[in-house]
């Protein structure tokens, strides 16, 4: 569905991504890991059309992303960004409704169906009781869930998530990833998620891609990619994988 063919991206006058290739299928969670500055956020920006490609192609269902309008692209792809600098005066309900933008005309007139879809998105992300609150009054974790609801309201088959769990309490980290996985299973969404937490990736991602210095160093199942040896090298700290019965090994510093 999403086909990334050897893309390179320049950012801040340096090459932030170098010949990155991978594919993403419906019903799949691809976890992107890598140290800070490895290019994870740049990858999300390039996929969502915010940064232009210096080389390579991205296609969705065979269609070149570079030739789509903003609106067409947003119908295919929704982004869950990190919760920062959000407009404080908006209510949660207004913010979630912004997710319907690619399905609306210039005036932004909403149909009952748009409101129903937004309502469903809030129900799933446990944000319904926040509906009338203003964004500026919410905690970082609540804002992050609102952004997830907004992305779901976009009804796009591809979901790009940039460190969505960073501000969340543990219970909501697990809840958000459980929700993501159930959406992937039930609605065959294709999800690309950048994560800091290696154990969260190991637990939820079907495949993992390791970005280092803008280069895709490894891609494969968690068991293939998340080896203690490889990660120790990349993160410059000795790590060990502790086997856990019935699940992926837990990665901790030695």
């Amino acid at each position, binding site marked *: 569905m999403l086909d990334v063919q050897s893309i390179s991206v320049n950012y801040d006058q340096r090459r932030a991504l170098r010949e990155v290739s991978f594919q993403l299928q419906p019903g799949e969670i691809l976890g992107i890991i890598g140290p800070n500055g490895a290019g994870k956020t740049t990858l999300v920006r390039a996929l969502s059309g915010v940064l232009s490609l210096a080389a390579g192609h991205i296609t969705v269902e065979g269609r070149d992303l570079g030739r789509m309008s903003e609106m067409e692209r947003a119908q295919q792809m929704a982004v869950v960004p990190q919760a920062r600098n959000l407009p404080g005066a908006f209510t949660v309900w207004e913010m979630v409704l*912004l997710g319907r933008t690619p399905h609306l005309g210039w005036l932004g007139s909403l149909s009952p169906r748009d409101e129903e879809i937004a309502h469903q998105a809030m129900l799933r992300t446990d944000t319904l009781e926040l509906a009338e609150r203003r964004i500026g009054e919410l905690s970082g974790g609540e804002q992050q869930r609102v952004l997830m609801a907004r992305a779901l309201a976009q009804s796009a088959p591809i979901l790009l998530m940039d460190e969505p769990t960073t501000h969340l309490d543990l219970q909501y980290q697990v809840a958000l990833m459980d929700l993501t996985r159930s959406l992937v299973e039930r609605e065959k969404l294709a999800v690309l998620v950048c994560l800091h937490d290696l154990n969260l990736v190991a637990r939820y991602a079907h495949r993992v891609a390791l970005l280092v210095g803008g280069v895709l160093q490894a891609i494969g199942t968690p068991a293939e990619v998340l080896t203690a040896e490889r990660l120790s090298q990349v993160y410059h700290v000795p790590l060990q994988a502790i086997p856990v019965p019935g699940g992926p090994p837990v990665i901790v510093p030695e």
Partner: protein
Amino acid sequence: MKPNPARPYWITTLLLALGLVLSLAVGSVFLSPAMLWDALRSRLGGLDLGPEVRTAAAILLDLRLPRTLLVALTGAALSGSGAAYQGLFRNPLADPYLIGVASGAGLGAVAAMSLRWPYTTIGLLAIPMAAFGGAVLSVLIVYQLARVGKAIPSSNLILAGVAISSLATALTSFLMLSGEGEVRRALVWMLGGASMSGWGPVLGVLPYVGIGLTVLILTGHALNVLQVGDEQARQLGLPVERARRIILAAASLTTAAAVAFSGIIGFVGLIVPHIIRLIWGGDYRRLLPLAMIGGAALLLFADIVARVLLAPQEVPLGIITALLGAPFFLWVLRRSRQQNLW
């Protein structure tokens, strides 16, 4: 739970209606509502109701009505474009006056006037275009000067606005002084005041403000989406660059037309959108029309004060709004540093 969505419109429209009636009634001669009605009837119906009504009709229809309409249009224009600039810059302090757009428009207008004073209809229509040029130029310069990466910090915006505003004002003064005669008239115009007489300016300002404000109302949704930042706005499917250009052009056109006919009147575009945002929230589809109605009302009240304060002499309107707006500005500045709730 949900408040009646029509209520903000009722409240602001009521204020506007009050401002309109008072503006028609108050002045060197007080015209009671009954007299206003008689005057209107006599002129429109062609009735002769005696000399007193004839005089009242002349005052009403040749002096007060055009002035009232011009003030209302100017208020709507400045407040509506202020709200739009605030959304565009994502900054609550972006008032057409404070960010230098008004002064830039003033320079454009005076440059056109120094070529030929607006004695002709063509001249009346050309001056807003010159003001528009000045407005767009100054807003682009301020934007470039104030920008740090993708963000526009308040302090930068205001500093760049002050710098461009000073430069434009200096050039404007120079043009006015190097012109022949007319200096006093131009000065009064600059302060926002008595050049407003007769129907000419109303007819001159109407097409520009009408078009500009209509476009701005239509961009309410786009402004809402822009509030999440350019990057997210694009990810949500908004053609960001195109939307920005349209909003910038419409806001600058509206400001320019207001300045060209009413002079430089500050702070209306700061006060009104801010109050409305506080009471009824930040949804631009609602904020823009409410700011326009409220701006018209506020400027009408300010104009009434300007007329009666030192009667029979008039205080320039820009002085009244500055007396009102400067303390308000400081309050907003303080507040916007403390919290992210604008």
